[in-house]
């Protein structure tokens, strides 16, 4: 652009700011291809992981519950002899280990559920942001078009030609 060219930024500093336009475009692309995809992938991964963990936990819960009931009922209130006591302690060790593992897996599932919710929120907020962005881009396009429609450039063929070129550049 030579020194005689009109500076369209003087007409509207926002609508004709190339850097701002490029950044909006960049954000648009990253939202479309990046952020929402990452959120969707995270949700997919988390869901699969949770399903596996829940399956394992249910299996362990059933096993531990059956074991617990059998052991509580077998023992009752009676005094165990040494052999019975040793057997009881062996089974109890196993049940204790299962119980501790169950607690951790259960907490993991609860944390995964929180992550799942967070991931959904990111996805939703990404969509809201994308919609807001598209609206801003549309408005800026309309503003540029309105300015162009004023038509005062068309009185000067040189400026009109220059403007067409610049307008084509900003139309995206």
């Amino acid at each position, binding site marked *: 652009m030579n020194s005689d060219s009109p500076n369209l930024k003087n007409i509207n500093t926002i609508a004709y700011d190339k850097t701002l336009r490029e950044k909006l475009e960049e954000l648009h692309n990253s939202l479309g291809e990046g952020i929402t995809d990452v959120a969707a992938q995270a949700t997919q991964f988390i869901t699969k992981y949770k399903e596996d963990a829940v399956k394992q936990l249910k299996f362990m819960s059933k096993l531990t519950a059956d074991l617990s009931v059998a052991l509580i009922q077998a023992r*009752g209130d009676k005094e165990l002899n040494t052999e019975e006591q040793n057997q009881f302690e062996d089974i109890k060790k196993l049940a*204790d280990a299962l119980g501790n593992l169950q607690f951790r897996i259960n907490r993991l599932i609860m944390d995964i559920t929180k992550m799942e919710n967070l991931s959904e929120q990111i996805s939703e907020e990404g969509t809201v942001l994308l919609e807001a962005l598209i609206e801003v881009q549309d408005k800026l396009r309309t503003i540029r078009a309105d300015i162009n429609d004023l038509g005062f450039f068309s009185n000067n063929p040189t400026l009109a030609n220059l403007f067409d070129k610049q307008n084509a550049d900003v139309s995206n």
Partner: protein
Amino acid sequence: MNKKILLVEDEVSIADVFKDQLTLGGFDVDIALGGAQALEMLKAKSYDLMLLDLVMPEVDGLAVLQTIKEKPEEYHKIPTIALTNVTSDDVKKEVEAYNLKAFLPKLSLKPQTLIETVNNALTK
């Protein structure tokens, strides 16, 4: 009048065993088959004591204790005994922060010990 106990246990078979023992010990027992149900029941009815399993899906025992502590306007303080297979010291430390009356291991628990511990917790 019998003391009212809320027994929170997601495994029906285990809940039934302890309910029988507590009923024989002279208590009125309601069962909540999960943390969420327990929180609803605590809002709807007044209990003298809660026996709480720690490992339950979705809302576990720790989450129940946290909710009661964080929402004093919705829940009254209730003496609580943990009834669990979890023996890990880390977990015990975490749970003890909620001033539990006792920490009872489900498996090695004799009916007599259960009744005595509940009575002690109620009289403290």
